[in-house]
């Protein structure tokens, strides 16, 4: 590989990747940030012109300093060149961008591709549609199995790409098809019915109305099936689009996860504040009720005692026996003569006594009122005490509620300070949107299932109609002949279907065996991996399916990569032996594997196991490692298999950063050095 001004790599740098029997490894040591990811991507960029998603600033292909040193209106180039041998032919692939600088900032450019073929006779000739040729040598669909980041490997099988309702691991399925070149068979399966239709359409209803009717019906069914299948595809796209939305929302929410407990706390505080406010309002209205209904009683102090006093005075005055009318007394006084005949003269004591009683006599009816009113007065003092108690209690209730409110509000503003920079509405909106997309996804799944069911029933109907067609008594010679031809085509189709199934199963079986084999070499636990009929990778224990940890996933992924590489090689080797031509899926090639951080976040035991197993995975393996991943046994194992070793030496203009070295073969090799500007240099470590 030759790099020129490509991203972190300044100037031209060459990476010798050749390997030998028994030494299939090339080790490249690099610090995080030194350009390991760039190097891994350089392979894929050279072959396919694209980067993986984890590459930042994808438009900045040309090294920053090279770009900065280029004058306006001058042209500047960055490129990656891969030289490799495939099936006895040597190829040179150059992917490059050449730009005339017009702005200060780099802008996205479409890279150009040159593919040159050097035949066995040493004649070089450029290939016109180079990308097609690359696709035949190493299909893009398989790139993730040959160029990968170990830290993201578990994602290959963690279900991200699996679609429910289809129950198949799409990516793996596609990869298998690419390996086997099964697309041609699939295309044939799709095209053959059209052949049948074309043949059948030569019979018109005059010749044989029954056959015509049946074949028309078949036409309709085919059209309907096409529509439904298209609908299913559309829905699948929708499902995965909605899924992506949900996942990206989840990622966004994850960033807010730290804030989540705080938000929960805030919500609960808000609820409590509201509750305290409600209580406050309740106490306030209780107070009003008290004041409104009984407030006036508070002001009766003194009135009650006065009324009682007046009533008592009345009672103390002498009174007439009940029933004696005032008019009776008045008559006696007027006549100055009692009914008993005795004189009652004015001025005598008798007269005065009667006169006094006359005053009270008129008060009889009033007296009753006085007694009633003064009776009511007796409890007033007690009532006033009650009101005082209730009001006091109420006042303390209100005070408590208010104190609680201000305490909670202080707490909430404290939380708000901590939540600064987190937009709560954002999170709530995200959650709302997530719900929305999740329900849309569910709807799409349901619709997909329905379409699937419709397709199934159309297929059944097709089969039945096909049978009727075959069994129908052809009316004319021509009709019978065509009937026969249609039947033949259908037979071919059935055979192809069978071939597809058998081949798929064959590869699955091979892969399964291979995965088991590689896995058992690496893994300590007594798990057995299995590639099931749906091409899903599972791990089994004695007690059933095991839950996979990141580490286990990684080993599983690694095993699978090894298995794919191996199986691809076997298949192409077999094809060659059988002298099959035309299908070029990397004939007998050595399949290289390029991996970054193959140990992800595994513990040491696994690292050692993998480092032992790696060289046996495939015949050319380029491994990018950071210092922390190259220690002790691991380094020893890898070095034994290494044909070449390189260090990505990063130069930094930040002279306050410490210079670093890495120990390889008991020698210190510069790793981070001071320089005039930021760039990375590939330096060979002499073994």
């Amino acid at each position, binding site marked *: 590989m030759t790099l020129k001004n490509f991203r972190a790599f300044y100037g031209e740098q060459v990476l010798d990747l050749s390997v030998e029997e028994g030494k299939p490894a090339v080790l490249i040591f690099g610090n995080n940030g030194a350009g390991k990811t760039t190097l891994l991507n350089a392979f894929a960029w050279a072959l396919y012109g694209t980067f993986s998603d984890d590459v930042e600033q994808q438009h900045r292909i040309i090294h920053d300093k090279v770009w900065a040193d280029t004058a306006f209106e001058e042209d500047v180039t960055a490129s990656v060149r891969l030289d490799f041998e495939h099936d006895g032919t040597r190829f040179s692939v150059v992917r490059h961008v050449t730009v005339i600088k017009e702005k200060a900032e780099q802008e996205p450019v479409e890279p150009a591709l040159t593919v040159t073929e050097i035949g066995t006779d040493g004649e070089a000739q450029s290939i016109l549609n180079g990308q097609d040729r690359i696709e035949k040598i190493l299909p893009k669909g398989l790139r993730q199995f040959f160029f990968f980041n170990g830290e993201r490997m578990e994602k290959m099988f963690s279900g991200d790409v699996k679609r429910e309702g289809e129950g198949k691991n799409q990516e793996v399925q596609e990869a298998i098809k690419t390996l086997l070149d099964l697309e041609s068979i699939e295309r044939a399966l799709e095209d053959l019915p059209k052949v049948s239709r074309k043949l059948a359409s030569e019979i018109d209803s005059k010749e044989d109305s029954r056959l015509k009717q049946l074949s028309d019906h078949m036409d309709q069914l085919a059209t309907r099936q096409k529509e439904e299948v298209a609908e299913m595809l559309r829905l699948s796209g929708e499902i995965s689009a909605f899924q992506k939305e949900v996942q990206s929302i989840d990622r966004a929410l994850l960033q807010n996860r730290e804030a989540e407990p705080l938000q929960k706390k805030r919500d609960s505080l808000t609820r409590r504040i509201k509750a305290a406010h409600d209580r406050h309002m309740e106490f306030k209205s209780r107070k009003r009720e008290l004041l*409104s209904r009984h407030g*006036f009683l508070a002001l*009766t*102090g003194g009135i009650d005692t006065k009324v009682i006093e007046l009533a008592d005075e009345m009672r103390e005055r002498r009174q007439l026996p009940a029933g004696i009318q005032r008019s009776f007394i008045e008559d006696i006084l007027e006549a100055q003569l009692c009914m008993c005949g005795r004189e009652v003269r004015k001025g005598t004591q008798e007269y005065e006594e009667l006169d006094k009683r006359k005053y009270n006599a008129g008060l009889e009816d009033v007296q009753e009122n006085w007694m009633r009113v003064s009776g009511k007065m007796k409890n007033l003092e007690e009532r006033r005490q009650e*009101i*005082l108690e209730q009001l006091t209690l109420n006042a303390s209730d209100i005070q408590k509620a208010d104190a609680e409110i201000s305490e909670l509000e202080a707490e909430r503003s404290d939380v708000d300070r901590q939540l600064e920079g987190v937009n709560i509405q954002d999170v709530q909106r995200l959650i709302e949107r997530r719900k929305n997309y999740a329900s849309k996804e569910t709807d799409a799944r349901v619709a997909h299932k329905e379409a699937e069911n419709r397709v199934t029933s159309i297929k059944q109907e097709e089969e039945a109609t096909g049978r009727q067609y075959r069994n129908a008594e052809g009316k004319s010679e021509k009709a019978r002949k065509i009937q026969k031809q249609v039947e033949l085509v259908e037979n071919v189709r059935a055979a192809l279907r069978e071939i597809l199934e058998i081949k798929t199963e064959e590869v699955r079986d091979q892969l399964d065996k291979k995965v088991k084999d590689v896995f058992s070499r690496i893994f300590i636990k007594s798990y057995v991996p299995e590639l099931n009929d749906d091409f899903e990778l599972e791990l089994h224990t004695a007690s059933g399916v095991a839950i996979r940890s990141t580490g286990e996933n990684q080993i599983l992924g690694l095993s699978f990569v090894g298995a794919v590489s191996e199986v691809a090689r076997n298949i192409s080797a077999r094809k060659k032996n059988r002298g099959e031509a035309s299908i070029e899926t990397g004939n007998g090639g050595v399949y290289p594997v390029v991996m970054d951080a193959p140990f992800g976040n595994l513990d040491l035991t696994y690292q050692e196991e993998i480092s032992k197993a790696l060289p046996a995975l495939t015949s050319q393996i380029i491994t990018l490692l950071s210092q922390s991943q190259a220690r002790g046994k691991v380094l020893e194992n890898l070095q034994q298999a290494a044909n070449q070793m390189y260090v990505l030496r990063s130069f930094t203009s930040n002279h306050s950063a410490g210079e670093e070295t890495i120990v390889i073969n008991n020698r210190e090799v510069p790793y981070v050095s001071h320089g005039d500007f930021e760039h990375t240099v590939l330096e060979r470590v002499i073994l």
Partner: protein
Amino acid sequence: MAYTDRFRRPKEHEELLGKLTDRKTGTFATMVEAMMFAALLGRRRGERKPFEHADEPIRLALMESRDYGEVLLDMLGAVECPDDPKILSADRQPDRVLIFEEYANAGLSHLQTLMHRQSDQDLDTIISNLVLEGLKTPPLEDENDDVGDILASADLNW
């Protein structure tokens, strides 16, 4: 026999009564309750204020259905005319109603003054202060109260 089945409310205090019984900010649930409170406030201050212009009168039955509402007119009448026991007789009912009305008018005027003077306080606070004051301090004519004497001698004006 003269008998009034309604009592009048002073037109002058129409707005104030509206405030007192405002659904949102008023302390009193009904006009009757506001008038009863005002009457006792007037009585406590020893003020009666005659008035001529009245708003739509209120049915006495409303007052009589309330706790102590049925003796309120009698109480006020009895203490207003201590030398005239007949004030409680049935045919003097209109007089008792008038006493009530005029006390209420005076009470309303006092409330109006307080609201002007303490415009920063809400109505509930003004009313409850009056209530607490009424509960904790004896009426002016009670002279057997030490606290009152001490307060009076200290020239504290309540």
